[in-house]
């Protein structure tokens, strides 16, 4: 594992020199800016692991008569370094497209450089609404609440839910949970009977629960993270409120069931990646990841794995005319890409991803996939 990684890095670093030496063997180079040091390094490590896996498989497959390299550059997701690395990648004429960065702000700051220089950029995690609006060169492989909210609304409507109470954390993300869901749910003919926002840090939901129970909702939709969610589910059980709970994908975390105990039973939630999925390609990915890197892949690793594969797919389609412009155009044509985070389609206009979100329910203390 270490050898592969080092070889890759060396290959990346030596590329400008190697280009002349092995002119007959064409190489295609990608840049990947990610936090390999600093407070977010655990994410960068996962991205790189997944990228190496995807790259090895692609180069072995021989889909194009050339080797693809990835130059990994550490940015600490720091705005100064992110912009400098973006300049560095733009200067390197061999680099045809870039993956990353991790945080939205680093991705946006680097994105301004890529927009100006005409370099396709695909981030696996930047969920800021403005990120894809920078220029036609920005793509992302993460769904936002603008996608998840309507998905849950349709799901509820299909389950016969007419009246919903919404409880969400009071921050920018929570605001987007409420607005995106409420608009879509009203469009299905349903009614949002109560909306309650709670301040971050507050885990006392009894007053909120009593209040919304009075509105007799058919279901409760909660936008929060698993720590708050566990407290909410427990208190709901203590107050014996029977309305089923639907949650945001942010609550997909084994700790939720651990903390909420029987209170979590029956909760519905959607997710783009499920490590326990019975699907063959997800299983293969999880097993190889565990074997090579001795750790469990999570949603972030999967997100990066798919992002790199989507990029490689675009390069394969663009071959032999692999230019920055062509790769951008091919990325925009990504349709029903079968990844480990579901089938992904990029909207050619907004460059927002659409994914088939998997539906889950907590049953017998386990996340269980619901077959459609």
């Amino acid at each position: 594992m270490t050898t592969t990684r080092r070889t890759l890095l060396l290959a990346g670093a030596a590329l400008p020199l190697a280009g002349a030496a092995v002119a007959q063997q064409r190489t295609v180079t990608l840049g990947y800016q990610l936090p390999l040091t600093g407070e977010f390094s655990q994410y960068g490590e996962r991205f790189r692991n997944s990228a190496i896996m995807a790259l090895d498989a692609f180069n072995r497959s021989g889909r194009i008569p050339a080797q693809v390299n990835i130059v990994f550059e550490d940015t600490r997701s720091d705005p100064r370094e992110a912009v400098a690395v973006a300049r560095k990648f733009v200067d390197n004429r061999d680099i045809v497209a870039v993956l990353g960065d991790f945080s939205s702000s680093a991705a946006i700051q680097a994105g301004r450089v890529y927009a100006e220089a005409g370099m396709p950029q695909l981030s696996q995690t930047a969920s800021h609404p403005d990120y894809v609006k920078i220029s036609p060169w920005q793509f992302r492989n993460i769904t936002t609440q603008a996608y998840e909210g309507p998905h849950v609304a349709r799901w509820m409507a299909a389950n016969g839910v007419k009246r919903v109470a919404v409880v969400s954390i009071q921050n920018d993300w929570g605001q987007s949970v409420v607005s995106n869901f409420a608009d879509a749910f009203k469009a299905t003919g349903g009614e949002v009977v109560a909306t309650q926002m709670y301040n971050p840090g507050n885990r006392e939901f009894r007053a909120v629960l009593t209040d919304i129970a009075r509105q007799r909702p058919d279901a409760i939709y909660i936008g929060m993270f698993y720590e708050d969610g566990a407290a909410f589910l427990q208190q709901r059980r203590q107050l014996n409120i029977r309305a089923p709970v639907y949650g945001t994908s942010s609550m997909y975390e084994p700790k939720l069931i651990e903390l909420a105990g029987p209170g979590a039973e029956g909760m519905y939630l959607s997710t783009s990646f499920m490590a326990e999925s019975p699907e063959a390609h997800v299983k293969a990915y999880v097993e190889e990841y565990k074997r090579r890197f001795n750790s469990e892949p999570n949603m972030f690793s999967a997100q990066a794995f798919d992002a790199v594969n989507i990029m490689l797919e675009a390069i394969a389609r663009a071959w032999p005319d692999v230019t920055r412009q062509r790769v951008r155009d091919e990325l925009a044509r990504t349709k029903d890409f079968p990844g480990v985070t579901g089938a992904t389609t990029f909207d050619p206009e907004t460059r927002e991803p659409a994914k088939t979100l998997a539906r889950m329910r907590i049953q017998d203390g386990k996340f269980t996939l619901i077959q459609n």
Partner: protein
Amino acid sequence: MRGANVSDRRFPPLAIALGAAIFVLVPLGLSLADSGYFFRLAIVTLIFSILALSMQLITGVAGLLSLGHAAIYGVGAYTAAILSTRLGLGPLLTIPLSGLVSGLLGIALALPTMRLVSIYFAVATLGLGEMIYVTLLNWVSFTEGPLGIGNIPPLRPLGIDLSGPLATYLFVAVITAIAAVIVHRCTHSYYGNALRAVREDDQCADAMGLNVVRLKIEVFAIACFLAGIAGALWAHTTGYVNPGDFRFAESILILAMVVVGGLGSVPGAIIGAALLLLLPEALRAVGEVRILMVGVVMFLCILFLPRGLFGEVSALSLARRQLGAAWQQDRGVGWR
């Protein structure tokens, strides 16, 4: 004014050499390399030189340990971002206005805290810095909160396009040079000596008739003004600001630049800024351990050169010898 006579009388060769290096040699080299990466590094180094210079004035010369400098810098960046995106003002207005807002904020913050000394002042500025950060983060209707402000226009003063790398570099270099002259004049003068007296023993300085509180407020205001200018330059050259960019860790970075470069030394601030920004980039080839190596270099610097790479004493004698700052040899007037 006597100071004017001095500069008329002789052209300091060092100033000419430095000017030639910053305005001719570096841009020429960077243009030949034709690398946006090196230009970007040069621009960021210049912006942080302004920050380190302003920090030098507060911490190195006046001896006030400020831990909230990044927040003041952030206020400058946000002022430029808001003025240019909402009101459409050009950089010729946003840059000085950012300085003014930060400077006025500096005065407002200095008034209640100036009677605090040493560690108490440091903790007070730490708290103020956090308050500013939390305000930038939570005042969503005004600062757009955690989403940050994007689409800040690049440098196009009076319709002249300075958004290219060379033009941006030169524009930032001119402002940095002006900031360096301001800090130089504040440091290498009677005024600077008064600040040093306050640093060494404020009660003694008070007893000698210096208005200690007023001096501290003045120097804090000047430094905050410069930090605000640096913030505006950052906003215009980067195009997007986010509260996360102006957290406590940035204050510590600026402080480290000043300490590694040499407390109280004007060239030291610039050397420290260049070292701590360029070293991590130069060490990219060694991989993940690069940040560790930066730490080692900083540690060794402090261990073996506790006065900094270019300490105050050398900086003062350099200023006297080369720039003849406030020193009229023939009349025997000046500071020693």
